[in-house]
Structure formats: C-alpha cells, structure tokens
C-alpha cells in the first residue's frame, strides 16, 4: 500500500492562514491503514487547526469528509456541494487523491496535508518500510523476493557493493543491506549460481524515466 505521513501541522496552518473556511478531505484507502489520513486523522486535524486559530483570535470554520478512495475519480463528485463555499481544500490523501481533487475543483486551491512517501508495508505497529521501487518490470524472481531497486541504497543489480558489512548497508547501521538478504535467501534456496549471472543494465524507460506511465487493459474497457 501507499505509505504517507502528515506534514507538520504548523506548516498546514501557515498555508491556510488567510482562509476562513476550509474543507478537509480524508481517504478510506491506504492512508487510513497507515494512520495518516483516514477519518480519524481528518477529524483530529480539523479540530487542531480550529484550536490553533481560536488561540490566534481568528476562528476557522472547517468541514470534513472522508472519501472511499480519493485516488478514484468516481468517489469525488459527492463532494461537489460541500466544496462550493470553502476557501481551500486540504486533502489528506496520497498525491493521487490531491490531484483528483484539484482536477475536479478547478477554482479551488487544494493543499496536500501529507507527504506521500513510498509503497511498502508495516513491520511493527507504527513503523512502515519501503518495499517496492515501482520500476515497471519486476525482477523479484531473480533476487529471492527482495527488491534491490528500492531496498538497496544504490539500486545495484549485481550486488552487494563494498560497503555491506555485518548485514547492514553502508548508509546506516539501522538499514539492512538488501544484497545480504538476497544472498541469504538465494543460498537457502540453493540458487547461488543464479547470482553469478551478470544482470544487464535495467530498462528505466519502463520506470518513471519514460515519462508518466499508463497501464491499459483494452479487454475491460467499456464502449
């Protein structure tokens, strides 16, 4: 899932300092699961902003709504009436949700309340780690199910580099070396010989370097 984290509240407050009424829009998808922008976080943020403004003597009006999925245009129109008289919209969705909001409400200033970080999963409650580099051409079958594109700090395809020591990456003693993990897994699978194959340079045109990507399934298109 997509992992996002809230921007500092004071930064969001500063962005809307001129507004009298704002709408906060949460999302019931990934950001609910990673505790960044679900219904609960949306309500808390709204009341925190109101309180800050109360203290400043410039009361703020807020309305809140949580979309089933902000990353799906289908779930945006129900907000048409609500956004009408607000000065700004604060989206607590990932970057996709923010953009769908901005796209539909052309005359509204849409502010991201979150920093969309990565796609990954949780380790323990309250900690999430990055797992997939979204490179557009999965190679996990070659690397024991561990993604070197994103979990290796240098995206090395023929690792590990000379900085790998005691299982950790050269960048920090808190970061596992992805290639140590790959090595251990391939060894356990009895497939170390596979690591002797030189992996060719990657086709990054399938990644973000090819420009905005599109995935098309003509068979499910309607009309």
């Amino acid at each position, binding site marked *: 899932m997509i992992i996002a984290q809230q921007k500092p509240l004071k930064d969001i407050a500063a962005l809307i300092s001129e507004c009298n009424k704002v709408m906060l829009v949460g999302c019931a998808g990934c950001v609910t699961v990673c505790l960044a922008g679900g219904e609960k976080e949306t309500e808390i943020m709204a009341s925190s902003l109101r309180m800050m403004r109360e203290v400043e003597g410039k009361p703020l009006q807020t309305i809140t709504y949580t979309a089933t999925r902000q990353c799906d245009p289908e779930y945006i129109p129900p907000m048409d009436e609500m956004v009408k008289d607000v000065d700004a919209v604060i989206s607590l969705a990932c970057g996709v949700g923010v953009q769908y909001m901005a796209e539909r409400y052309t005359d509204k200033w849409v502010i991201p309340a979150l920093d969309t970080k990565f796609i990954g999963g949780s380790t323990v409650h309250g900690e999430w780690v990055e797992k997939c580099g979204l490179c557009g051409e999965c190679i996990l079958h070659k690397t024991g199910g561990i993604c070197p594109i994103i979990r290796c700090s240098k995206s090395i*395809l023929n690792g590990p580099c000379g900085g790998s020591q005691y299982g950790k*990456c050269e960048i920090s003693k808190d970061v596992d070396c992805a290639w140590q993990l790959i090595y251990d897994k391939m060894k356990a699978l009895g497939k170390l010989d596979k690591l002797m194959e030189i992996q060719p340079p990657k086709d990054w045109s399938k990644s973000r370097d090819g420009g905005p990507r599109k995935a098309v399934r003509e068979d499910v298109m309607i009309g």
Partner: protein
Amino acid sequence: MKYLSKLHKILDSGQFAVTAEIGPPKHASVEGVKHHAHMMKDYVDATNITDCQTAIVRISSIATGVHVLGAGIEPIVQMTCRDRNRIAMQADILGAYCLGMRNMLCLSGDHQKFGNHPTSKNVYDVDSMQLIQALRRMRDDKVFFSGEEIKECEPRFFIGAVANPFADPFEYRIDRLEKKVEAGAQFIQTQCIFDMERFERFMEKVRERGIDQRVHILAGLTPLKSWRGAKYMQSNVSGMIVPDSIVERLKSAEDPKKEGVDLCIEQIKYVREKIKGVHGVHVMAIAWEEIVPEIVERSGLYPRPQVDPSELE
C-alpha cells in the same frame, strides 16, 4: 603484442606493479595535484584519480587526469556509478580516451549521504558490474552500451575494478570478484588491507579458483598517520576492518607517523613475498601523497620498470 597502457604492460609481463592515488582538490587549482604528481612520478607505475571520493565535490577525475598525465604519470581514471547515467558515462569514457587516459577503474561510489551534498539525487543507472562489461564491449565489440556500433576509434581502456575482502558476505566476495573478471575486469585493486589474516583467507580462495591467473590483483594498503585515524576507520567506515592491534601499535608508538609508514612497508613486503597471487600494491596515502616515494623506496620497489612507448597501442 601491443599493450593498452603502461600498467597493462607491467602487469602482463609479470612485474610487481605499484600504483598510488591522487585525490583532486575541492577548488579549481591543480597546483597541489601537479606537485604530488611530480613527486611520485618515478616511484609509481600509475596513479588513481579519485572520482568525487566520499561524495565530496572535487575537480573531476578526468580533468585532473589531464594534469597528472602532463606531469608524466599514467592516470587510472576512477569512474563511479553514482553521479552519471549511461549517456554521461559514455561521453566521459570517450572524452577520457581522447585526452590520453588509458586505464579506467569502475566502481559503485560512496553513497552521497557521506558527502557535502547529502540532499542530492543519486543516479545508479548502471552498476559497477554493468559498467565494466559495457566498457569491455566498447573496446572489444565496438558498441555503445545500447549495442549501437561505434563506427571509428573505439575507446580502448585497460579495465580495472575493485574488490573488498572485508565487506560481507565474505564467501560471496570471491564470487563477486569472479563475476567482475567475467564482466571484463583486467586488474583489481582491493580495499585498504589492515586485517591481513582475512586478506590471506580471501586470496587462498581466489587461488583455489584460479582467479589470480585471470586477473591482476593489487593489494590496497594505506599508511596510517595516527591511532585516531585508525580508530576512525575502524568504527566509521563501512566495509573496513581495522584490528585493535594496529590501533594499539600506533597508540603506543613514540612517533606514530613513522610507525604508520613502517607498518605499511611491512605490509607491502608481506603481501609481495608471502601471498601468492598478488601482482602489485595500490598505495592509498590518503591526504598524505608526499609519503609515497619513501614507502616505495623503503619497500624495495624502486626503481620502477620502464616501458617503451612503442610497446603501447
């Protein structure tokens, strides 16, 4: 047979090679570089020119290489994968060759986190293995990385790579070395050796697999200036092993600098005389280039062999 470079000729003819390292400065003057090059000139066969080492901005390795070459030393241009995509890399490969560089050392490069621009974006379009292979294919198959033909004057480098026997997983370090040789590496410089026992184990496995017959391995050695320097490397540089005994030796020395030099000389003699399969030494006198002549001379590696330019391509 014509050789790709002087270093190539020295190594292929079975002579024990000596390379050193020159770190370009963090400003635009090459006076210091020229000074170091002149000083080392007769004592080394070639010098590495580091490529923004530890991710700190410095004069580019190729530009520095021009001055080193001018001062009479054969440069070994280092090229990391951190800062350039494959287009920029090939432009620099062609550029370095047309400027007279003949040795290139391919490496991943330290992560930018350690340098003076930790907020920069790293590239790693290709990794060091792929760079070695592509550089070989440019020379032997006359093709760009993409496979497109190089119509004339392909860059013909003597290709180097690095190996770190002190990084993990230990057993895989030998595999990875072999993989680099398969990719096209012709000479290897190792990470600084302080843990001689581990290096010997590494070389034993290298010999078992005959890798030392297929590639020239140069043992990387670094003279230490102080016990603090040793301690710093011990605890802060990932992929480095510095035994406590070395820290202690420097700590109890009356003249730590002299002790560091003595130690380095002992190590050079040791790898040369006792470890089969080592074809040379790579002396990395980090920020201490002046000491190289003394080390070479006292190690019994002076004078250096002469190579007749007519033997080179």
